[in-house]
């Protein structure tokens, strides 16, 4: 057992140096605004030009073939430098991982490079009004058409969709009674005929997601991922990744915890809040070390993704609640900490609520019996 990071120190130094020279001195506007979205897209292009937008991908698609450890180190440096949020995150962390597992060579070659370059920004289109946590209850349909499929129905909580270019999601291509079976995984453009995008404001009023109304939207066969009808299985590989380290890397929390300590000190280091500040810092380190443990293991400990997701999502809320308590009467004022707080509140809800994750942990890791089903 060791924690010898010296082999990756040259890579860390290169990343740190590049970021020091390139991270905008002034924070970009919120990426949940039109101007902010454009600025973040431009930043993705800057990253891509330095081959830093998707370091862990193979070189042929715009990456550097970085190891998981190098990726973790990249993330540490990225957030420590206060670099902008990643507007390409849905594509890079969800769709791309699915494509690597299930995509055709043609899809990989067509989809990944523009994603890496920040030319095409992707939105996810999972949820529907009647199917949030219970994704198997999806009702939006994909119907066979000449050379492709026709999409109909409604998607909701589609993050980034207010300003993104394309979206991916599951659609029902078989009878609803089949639930997990009979779903197909498709990609479609948000500016296609028949797509209506209605931006929806989140808690701070910013349009962080959108509703999508789909009226006979044509999708060619080549934009189906995996076999038609096998979308659930295909999507679950994405979901597994979504719930692991990639969705929120340890680097984010290390940086946020350092900022929290600085905020606490700047406000007089109130001993009343000392334990909570320390806990946030300790937990961020715990997540970092847990990440090293995860990538050191050959086997993929399935529900570990659930354990990680519960941990980081609650840490994120606690960390930001502590920051707001440090700010006291000023907590309600707009600013980085308030936006971070609003963002953190979604953590325990999305990508499988923490209640569902706890069920999975109890049943899959601890072996407790499943509930009586109706």
């Amino acid at each position: 057992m060791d924690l010898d990071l010296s082999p990756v120190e040259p890579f860390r130094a290169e990343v740190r140096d590049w970021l020091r020279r390139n991270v905008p001195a002034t924070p970009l506007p919120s990426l949940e605004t039109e101007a902010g979205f454009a600025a973040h897209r431009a930043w993705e292009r800057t990253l891509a030009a330095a081959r830093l937008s998707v370091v862990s991908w193979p070189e042929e698609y715009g990456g550097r073939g970085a190891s998981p450890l190098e990726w973790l180190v990249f993330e540490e440096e990225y957030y420590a430098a206060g670099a902008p949020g990643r507007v390409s995150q849905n594509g890079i962390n969800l769709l791309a991982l699915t494509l690597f597992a299930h995509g055709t060579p043609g899809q990989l070659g067509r989809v990944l490079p523009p994603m890496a370059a920040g030319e095409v920004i992707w939105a996810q289109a999972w949820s529907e009004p009647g199917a949030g946590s219970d994704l198997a209850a999806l009702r939006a349909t994909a119907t066979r058409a000449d050379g492709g499929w026709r999409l109909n129905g409604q998607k909701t909580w589609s993050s980034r969709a207010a300003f993104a270019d394309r979206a991916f999601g599951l659609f029902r291509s078989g009878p609803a009674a089949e639930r997990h079976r009979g779903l197909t995984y498709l990609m479609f453009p948000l500016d296609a005929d028949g797509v209506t995008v209605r931006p929806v404001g989140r808690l701070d009023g910013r349009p962080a997601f959108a509703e999508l109304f789909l009226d006979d939207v044509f999708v060619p066969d080549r934009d189906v991922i995996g076999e038609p009808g096998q979308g659930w299985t295909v999507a679950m590989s994405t979901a597994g990744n979504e719930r692991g380290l990639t969705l929120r890397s340890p680097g984010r929390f290390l940086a946020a915890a350092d900022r929290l300590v600085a905020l606490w000190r700047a406000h007089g280091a109130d001993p009343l809040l000392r334990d909570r500040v320390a806990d946030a810092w300790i937990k961020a380190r715990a997540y970092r070390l847990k990440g090293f443990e995860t990538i050191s293991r050959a086997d993929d400990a399935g529900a570990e993704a659930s354990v990680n997701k519960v941990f980081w999502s609650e840490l994120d809320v606690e960390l930001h609640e502590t920051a707001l308590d440090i700010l006291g009467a000023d907590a309600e004022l707009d600013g980085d900490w308030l936006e971070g707080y609003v963002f953190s509140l979604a953590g325990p809800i999305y990508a499988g609520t923490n209640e569902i994750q706890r069920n999975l942990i109890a049943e899959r890791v601890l072996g407790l019996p499943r509930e009586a089903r109706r």
Partner: protein
Amino acid sequence: MRFVLDTEQRLLGDTLHGLLTKAGTPALIRRWAAGDHDRTLWSALGETGVFALAVPERHGGAGPLPVELVVAAHELGRHAAPGPIVETLAAAALLDGSAAAGPAAEWLPRIAAGQAVVSLGSPGRIRRALDADAADLILLADGEHLFSAVPEGPAVRALDPARRLFPVRQVERLATGPAVPRAAATAYDLAALACAAQLLGLGRALLDVTVKYARTRRQFGRPIGEFQAVKHHLANALTGLEFARPLAYGAALSFGSPDFPRDVSAAKAAASDAAYATARTALQVHGAIGYTDEYDPSLWIRKVRALRSAWGTPADHRARVLAAVPEVRGESPR
């Protein structure tokens, strides 16, 4: 001893609930946030006697009636009514107690009648005046001086879009003397109590709407309210609110006694925690829809977060409580 609301007090609550339901506060909140300061609701509240509860009879009011103030603030919170209502109530106490005979005679009858919107600030304690651009009068209490004031720049953007917070600067001195800080202290305590009552009403409304949602929203083939995790979240929310409520009424009944500040602080700390925990539960049980700007309960959730640290943070109030707990006669056996 009869520590439950009497018929008349319950009637006041019911009347306000009816009035506010009819008024349709969600639309009003959104309009208020957009700068439309229509006073129809304000006048109606005045006619119902809400503002008169903080104004003494000699100035055209019926107060101070702290229990009734808690009843009213609870309903106003339950409907998340917008505007500087608490501030106007506090301003009444401040004007009345500051030995500012002229301004009191000028403003208190108008406040009582619902014809004056008043905001206020106080260096250190209340650094920004709520909805100052909608106010007929802005008070600024600073040590032994009471001033009128005006906004000094635009509103600061805040989480609750209907809370528009303005820095202000003094314009004219209205009163000077030791009565001013005394009145400011009473005004602060009354406002903190009204704020606690609002939080309880906000929490109650969020609990109700979340219970209703959990009864009807289905996932995995059953209403989500059937799942123990959801049940226990909601049972905890109820328990918190149930035990914060008597603290608020208890504080109201100690108005005028030396225990009043301590009891107000106990109520504000407990109500802040209970309402905030309920808001978090409401968000978690609703899922993404509760996180949505256009879904009405999100207006309640945002207001709870804001009021939690308005008129003193929970930590401020807990410190005040402990400072007021007398030394006991040594450590007694169990």
